[in-house]
């Protein structure tokens, strides 16, 4: 049985960040994910916002992780080479009755330690976002809010971990823990058993099942909450800000946001679903998010949508441990006494993306407290150089790229201007993109107006060639999602 110091279960943003920060120390680390790529769950379907931290209830672990995590993103994006823009965000009050909420949020933000917030007047909001609802009565401005490329943030963290010695195994599903008495000494998976001194539960939507296998928190339950989104055509409407409505009991509400891919996005709603894989989009859900979006920007219409998707939040039921704070959906980040060897992370819903790097540091702190020596590796390299995105380069840089490697001259996705060079680079990256969706998340290929109908046959061909497999074996998102079923009769002749 191959043995590791640490096994991280789950390759979402939390698992990948934890592996990346742990890779600084002399530890033998394994990260496993059941999917054919890392970051395919909540990390791949969210609002892509790095929250300022005024929203979580003061005193909760959520609030603490949010504000600590937020402060880490500038350095993180610089070191890991993914796109991030701290452009600030707004909570927009529509009509006089919503104005009071802004003051409450401002106060809450101050208690959470969010810097620089203030309330701006309606006229100021109108000038900053000309498309805003004319009934705007004011807005809360949080300059530390930001937007990121959540796909590449996850990929970059994992790649940097791999560069620093972490092993990543995909299509490797956690089945059970291996115990020595009460102590966890290994993990059982569909591809075999692995020994470990520490197992980190970063299983996201499945975190409850994983911790129950360790006999921890039997009452803890994840109730998947589906959020539906629509992505807008870049050419049709420009939104340059991150706009939240005033929050309600049901959460932060349906927002309108700019993304770093250039498309504006609206959503999410919040529906409880039974199945943690049920990311289906519904008619009712779409109606709901457009209604919500129009409250902020009345000129938004479903006609502008270029794509729709849904993500699932890992909504938990863990009570906040701070005395005097009654909050029943807090994050869990702990080393439970009843299961030595387990680092238990659960209920990481929004602001989970923002909090991920702070959660990673918290895990390190807990390991230290548990007696781990955590010696730093002298050759730890925090830098992961970014790979070029043809579309975003100035013309001269594009020309240089083509001269150096002619494959950058062949455009495969015409809408998003993604070249063969970029696709091949992703297929052979430290975390190889081995299926269509993996390439799509990394390059934004196939997300334009033609929704991939032009590039799909070409990408299948490239994947087959680069991976040395038959075109019929190429998948959209791992085994079972093959694009093609067989050869035509012409091959028999």
């Amino acid at each position, binding site marked *: 049985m191959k043995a590791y110091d640490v096994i991280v279960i789950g390759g979402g943003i939390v698992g990948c960040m934890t592996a990346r920060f742990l890779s600084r120390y002399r530890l033998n680390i394994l990260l496993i994910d059941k999917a054919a790529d890392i970051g395919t769950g909540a990390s791949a379907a969210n609002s892509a916002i790095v929250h300022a931290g005024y929203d979580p209830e003061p005193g909760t672990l959520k609030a603490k992780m949010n504000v600590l995590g937020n402060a880490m993103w500038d350095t993180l994006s610089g070191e890991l080479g993914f796109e991030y823009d701290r452009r600030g965000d707004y909570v927009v009050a529509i009509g006089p009755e919503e104005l009071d909420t802004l003051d409450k949020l401002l106060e809450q933000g101050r208690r959470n330690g969010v810097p620089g917030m203030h309330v701006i007047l309606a006229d100021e909001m109108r000038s900053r976002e000309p498309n805003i609802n004319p009934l705007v009565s004011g807005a809360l401005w949080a300059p530390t809010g930001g937007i990121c490329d959540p796909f590449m943030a996850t990929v970059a963290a994992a790649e940097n971990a791999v560069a620093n010695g972490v092993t990543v195994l995909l299509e490797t599903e956690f089945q059970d823990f291996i115990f020595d008495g009460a102590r966890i000494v290994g993990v059982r998976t569909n591809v075999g058993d692995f020994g470990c001194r520490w197992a980190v539960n970063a299983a996201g939507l499945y975190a409850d099942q994983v911790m129950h296998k360790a006999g921890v928190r039997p009452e803890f339950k994840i109730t998947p909450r589906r959020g539906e989104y629509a992505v807008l055509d870049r050419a049709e409407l420009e939104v340059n800000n991150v706009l939240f409505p005033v929050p309600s009991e049901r959460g932060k509400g349906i927002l309108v946001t700019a993304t770093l891919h250039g498309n504006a996005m609206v959503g999410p709603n919040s529906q409880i679903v039974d199945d943690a894989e049920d990311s289906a989009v519904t008619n009712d859900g779409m109606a709901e998010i457009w209604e919500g979006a129009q409250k902020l920007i009345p000129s938004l219409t479903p006609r502008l949508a270029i794509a729709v998707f849904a993500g699932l939040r890992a909504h938990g039921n863990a009570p906040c441990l701070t005395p005097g704070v009654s909050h029943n959906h807090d994050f869990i980040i702990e080393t439970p006494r009843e299961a030595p060897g387990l680092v238990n992370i659960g209920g990481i819903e929004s602001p989970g993306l923002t909090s991920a790097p702070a959660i990673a540091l918290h895990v390190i702190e807990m390991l230290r407290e548990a007696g781990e020596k955590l010696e730093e590796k002298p050759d730890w390299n925090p830098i992961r150089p970014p790979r070029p995105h043809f579309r975003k380069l100035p013309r001269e840089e594009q020309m240089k790229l083509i001269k150096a490697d002619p494959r950058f001259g062949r455009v495969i996705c015409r809408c998003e201007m993604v070249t063969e060079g970029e696709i091949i680079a992703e297929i052979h990256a430290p975390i190889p993109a081995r299926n269509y969706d993996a390439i799509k998340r990394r390059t934004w290929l196939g997300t334009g107006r033609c929704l991939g109908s032009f590039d799909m046959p070409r990408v299948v061909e490239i994947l087959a060639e680069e991976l040395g497999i038959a075109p019929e074996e190429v*998948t959209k998102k791992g085994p079972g999602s093959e694009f093609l079923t067989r050869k035509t009769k012409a091959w028999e002749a």
Partner: protein
Amino acid sequence: MTTKDRYDVVIIGAGPGGLAAAIAARQNGAEDVLVIERDKELGGILQQCIHNGFGLETFQQDLPGPSYAQRFIDQALDHGVEFLLDTMVLDISSQRRIFATGKHSGIVDLTARSVVLSMGCRERTRAQIRIPGMRPAGVYTAGTAQRWVNVEGFMPGSRYVILGSGDIGMIMARRLTLEGAHVERVLEVMPYLTGLTRNYVQCLMDFDIPLQLSHTVKRIIGHKRVEAVETVRVDERWNPIPGSEEIIPCDTMLLSVGLIPENELSRQAGVLIDPLTGGPFVDDSFQTNIPGIFAAGNVVHVYDLVDWVSEAGRLAGISAARFAAQVRRKENRLVPLLAGENVRYVVPHRMDRETLAETPVRLQLRVRQPIESPVWVEVRNRTNLIARKGELYARPGEIITLEIPTTAYDEVQKADELTLAVVKR
């Protein structure tokens, strides 16, 4: 690689419109014609249309798509048309400067005296995003499936539901059936057929493939690969009729819900688009609002028969050749004015030979080095003196003016270039 950086006519797209335009442009006096095509082969979408029904108007023959295309390809090659394959145009300016790249063609940066836009159209996918449900593999446009089956030789599935009664969808229903697949049915949200009746008869009726009018897909089912679709009948306002739902097991859903002209490049060049057709506003010579930029074929509006696309391409090619000839004539009338001995620069840089028929041309120049003694300021065509004027000195800080008189008209007609010089007397 291209042979020049300046062409009479550059055509974007080597489909039926572009090929016909290229041939017509050469036949009508264009000296050099270049066609830029993003695919690896000529002929555009015709290469994957292996069914017949092409050429009845043009050749009075019923041809398959590739054969129809080949006739135009052969003619174009005979007429000395240049081609750049596997090359994507990234940008066209209103001044007809074209920037393109390709794996083998590298970086292409050239100027055209006239341009024909013939990028064709693409399949509509908006319907796809309005269909609720999951996003598994197995949802393709009919054209993508057609490329896989007819060009690459792969079947994208075994049990199909086709949404939309467009021509490509019906043709694919037949094609897939012939390949041994099962097409469960074709659904059409409208109460009538949207493609050609002949395709309904030859592709659906003859193969017993059911067509359900006033029906659409309510939901896609399946996590990894399509497992089924839920269909529903709709009323005249496309509202689903409750109780009419049906779950149809299948592994593939094809979309054939219409085509839209592809005009991202046209917009970059400043070409105005008619919101109704989705294509450029054109005049009777197929010229857009930008002088020298023409458009032909499905890029203007979606045709029902390829023969009309070829005809539109032919007309646009003729117009483009004429426009290029005018530009060329104008270019030929211009004579460059060059800075010769001790001249730093001359303005204007070029002059129209014909101006001298009416008025003298005034030139202004600066010298490189001061000469503190009398000088000649001269214009020559090679060694022949055309105009000369005396100055007492020449200094870089002072502009010198010189006129070419109308009497120099004949001499200037003969000149390829004129050279200015400032020399000691």
